C-alpha cells in the first residue's frame, strides 16, 4: 500500500514538473516591455492593524512611486489598531499635505472589511491593496499598468521578495518565493493564477466591485478574489519585472502560523468552489490549478510521513532500539556491515525516479533564479537547506492543517 502511495506521489510530481517545463518551453517567460500611454488614476489601499512600526516605510515607498502624484490616491484604513498606527499616519498626512492621503478609521473588522471599505470610496480606475509591512519598488506602477491591455485583464501581479533575509528561515522563504513566482508566471500563460497576494496586486476596480469585493470572512481573501476573477472568465497576469519587498516570518513557529492559515484557507476556499474542479468549462484552471492545492497536500504529507517518517525516522529509531540491546557497542557489526555491503543493495528504482525529479527540479530552480535576476551561486547554501528542510516544513504544516480540520479548529484570521 505504502509503495503504491509513494509511486503515485512520484508519478504526479514528475508529471507536473514535465508539464510546467513544456509550457515554459512553448511560451517562454519574457514579456515584451510595454510603455504606458496615459496615466490612469490609481487607488492604493493600505489596510493596517497595529502596524505603527512598519507603516511609515510602506507609505513613504508609495509616495516615492514614479507616477504622476495627482493620479495616486492613498487610502490608509486603520482597522481598529490598539497602537499608534492612527497617530503615525496622521503625522505623515501633515508632513505631505500636497499628497492625496486619506485616513479611514474603522472598528476592528478584519482585512477584507478594511479593503472593502476603501474599495467603496476609491476614485481610481485601478485598486491596489498593499500590506502595511511591504515596500513597493519605484517603477511598479509603470511596469504593471501597461499589462491591462484588454478590458479582460482583471488583475496584474508583481513579484514578491523577502525584505530582510536575516535568518535561515527567511532565506529559505526567499528561495521559495523565487520558485513560486516563476511557477505563477508559467501558469499565467494558461491564465491559471489562483491567488492575487496582498502586496500590490493591481485590480481593475470596476470588475472586483462588480464581483462583490473581498470576502470579509475568509482566511485567504486574496485567494478567494483570484478564484472569483477566474470563475468570471477574466484574466490575471503575473509579471516578474518589478518586485514588492515584504516581511517574512523569522522563525518556524511564525512560519507555521502563517502557512497554517494560508493552506487551511486555500483548502476551505477551493472546497467552497468545488463545482469548478475538473469542470471543462473552466479549462486548465479547473482541471489543473484548482486540484493543485489538494495535490500539494497529498504530495507533502506523503513525502513527510512515508518518506521521512516511514523510510528514515522509523528505521532509525528501530535501529537505535536494536543497538541498545548491545549497549551501542556497534563496532563489530559495522565492520561486518561494510564487509558485506554491495552496490546491489541500493534500491535503484526509487533512486532513479527521485534523481530524475531532482534534476528537473534543479533545472526549474536555476531558471527561476535566472529570470528573477539572481545568481544561483549567491544562494548555494540556502538552496541546499531549501531542498532538505523545506519539504519537511511544508509536510509539518500540511499535517497540522489536516489535523486541525479533522478536529474542527479554524482560526478567524
Amino acid at each position, binding site marked *: 500500500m505504502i509503495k503504491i502511495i509513494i509511486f503515485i506521489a512520484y508519478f504526479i510530481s514528475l508529471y507536473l514538473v514535465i508539464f510546467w517545463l513544456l509550457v515554459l518551453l512553448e511560451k517562454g517567460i519574457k514579456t515584451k516591455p510595454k510603455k504606458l500611454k496615459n496615466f490612469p488614476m490609481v487607488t492604493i489601499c493600505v489596510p493596517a492593524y497595529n502596524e505603527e512600526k512598519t507603516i511609515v516605510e510602506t507609505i513613504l515607498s508609495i509616495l516615492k512611486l514614479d507616477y504622476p502624484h495627482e493620479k495616486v490616491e492613498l487610502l490608509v484604513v486603520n482597522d481598529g489598531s490598539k497602537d499608534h498606527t492612527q497617530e503615525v499616519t496622521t503625522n505623515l498626512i501633515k508632513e505631505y499635505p500636497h499628497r492625496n492621503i486619506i485616513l479611514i478609521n474603522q472598528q476592528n473588522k478584519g482585512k477584507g472589511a478594511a479593503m472593502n471599505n476603501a474599495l467603496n470610496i476609491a476614485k481610481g480606475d485601478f485598486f491596489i491593496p498593499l500590506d502595511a509591512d511591504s515596500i513597493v519598488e519605484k517603477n511598479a506602477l509603470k511596469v504593471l499598468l501597461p499589462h491591462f491591455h484588454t478590458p*479582460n485583464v482583471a488583475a496584474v501581479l508583481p513579484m514578491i521578495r523577502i525584505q530582510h533575509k536575516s535568518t535561515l528561515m527567511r532565506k529559505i522563504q526567499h528561495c521559495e518565493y523565487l520558485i513560486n513566482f516563476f511557477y505563477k508566471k508559467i501558469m499565467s500563460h494558461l491564465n491559471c493564477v489562483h491567488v492575487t497576494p496582498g502586496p500590490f496586486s493591481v485590480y481593475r476596480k470596476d470588475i472586483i466591485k462588480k464581483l462583490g469585493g473581498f470576502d470579509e470572512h475568509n482566511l485567504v481573501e486574496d485567494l478567494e478574489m483570484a478564484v472569483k476573477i477566474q470563475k468570471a*472568465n477574466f484574466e490575471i497576469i503575473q509579471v516578474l519585472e518589478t518586485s514588492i519587498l515584504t516581511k517574512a516570518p523569522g522563525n518556524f513557529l511564525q512560519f507555521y502560523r502563517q502557512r497554517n492559515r494560508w493552506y487551511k484557507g486555500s483548502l476551505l476556499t477551493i472546497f467552497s468552489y468545488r463545482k469548478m474542479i475538473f469542470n471543462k468549462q473552466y479549462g486548465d484552471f479547473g482541471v489543473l490549478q484548482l486540484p493543485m492545492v489538494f495535490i500539494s497536500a497529498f504530495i507533502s504529507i506523503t513525502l513527510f510521513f512515508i518518506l521521512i517518517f516511514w523510510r528514515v525516522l522509523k528505521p532509525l529509531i528501530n535501529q537505535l532500539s536494536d543497538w541498545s540491546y548491545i549497549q551501542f557497542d556497534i563496532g563489530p557489526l559495522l565492520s561486518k556491515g561494510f564487509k558485506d555491503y554491495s552496490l546491489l*543493495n541500493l534500491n535503484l528504482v526509487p533512486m532513479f525516479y527521485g534523481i530524475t525529479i531532482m534534476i528537473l527540479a534543479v533545472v526549474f530552480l536555476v531558471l527561476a533564479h535566472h529570470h528573477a535576476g539572481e545568481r544561483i551561486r549567491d544562494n548555494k547554501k540556502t538552496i541546499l537547506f531549501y531542498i532538505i528542510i523545506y519539504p519537511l516544513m511544508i509536510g509539518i504544516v500540511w499535517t497540522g492543517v489536516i489535523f486541525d480540520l479533522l478536529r474542527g479548529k479554524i482560526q478567524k484570521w
Partner: protein
Amino acid sequence: MVKGNYERKISIKRFSLALILTCFVFLVGLLVGNTLTNQRTGYLEEIAYKQKLDYESLQLQSLYLDLSASNASCSIFNQILETSLNDVGTAQAKIDLYIKETSKDSYSELKREYTLAQVRYWLLNKRIKQACTGEHVSILYLYSNDDCVECGAQGTILSYLKEKLQDKLFVFSLDSDFDQEPMVSILRQTYNITKIPSIVIEDQVFDKLIGKADLIKEICSHYSEKPEICVN
C-alpha cells in the same frame, strides 16, 4: 454577475505529451528495476552454486571424519563450515532485503535454496559434533520479517555475539514464515516453537527475546574452554 470573455480551454496536447514523457521515464525506471533484479539474481545464483560445491565438499569431509576423526581435520572442517555458513547468512540477509524492496515472488526460489542450505549445514554441524570434540556452540535462530518487533533486537544480539565469538559460535537462521519449504515447519514442530523470535541452543529451546547478558551466560555454559567474553 459580470462576465469576462477569456476563452478557456484544456491544453489536451500538452497534458498528453506530459503524460507520454512521464510514462517514458517510468518505463525506463521499470527497465532499471528489471535489470537490477536480474543482476541480483545472477549474483545470488553464483553464490548458491559455490555453496553447493562447498556443501558437497563438506559432506565428503564429514564422511571421511566418520572413518578417521582427528582433531586436525576437525578444525579444517569447522573453518570451512564457518566460512560457508557466513556466506549463506550474508546472501540470505540480502535476499530478505531484496524481498522487502520488491516482491516475494522474484526471489522465492533463491530464498528456498538458501533456507535449505542453512538446514543442511545445521544437520551437518550436528553430525560432526558427535565425531569431533570441536569447541563451538550452535544456535538455530527462527525469525520473521513480518510483524516481529523483537526480531531486530534478537538478530542484532546474535550478530554481535557471532562477531565476538567468531568460529566458536555458529548461528543457523531460518525465516519461520517461509512456508514454501516444509523443512521449516518440521523443525518448528520438532522443537515445539510457537513464538517468534525463538532460539535453540544445543537442543534447548528459548521462545522469547533473550538479552545479551543472558545469552552470553547460556552460550558460555556449553564451552569447556571459556572464551574471553565468558570470562569478563
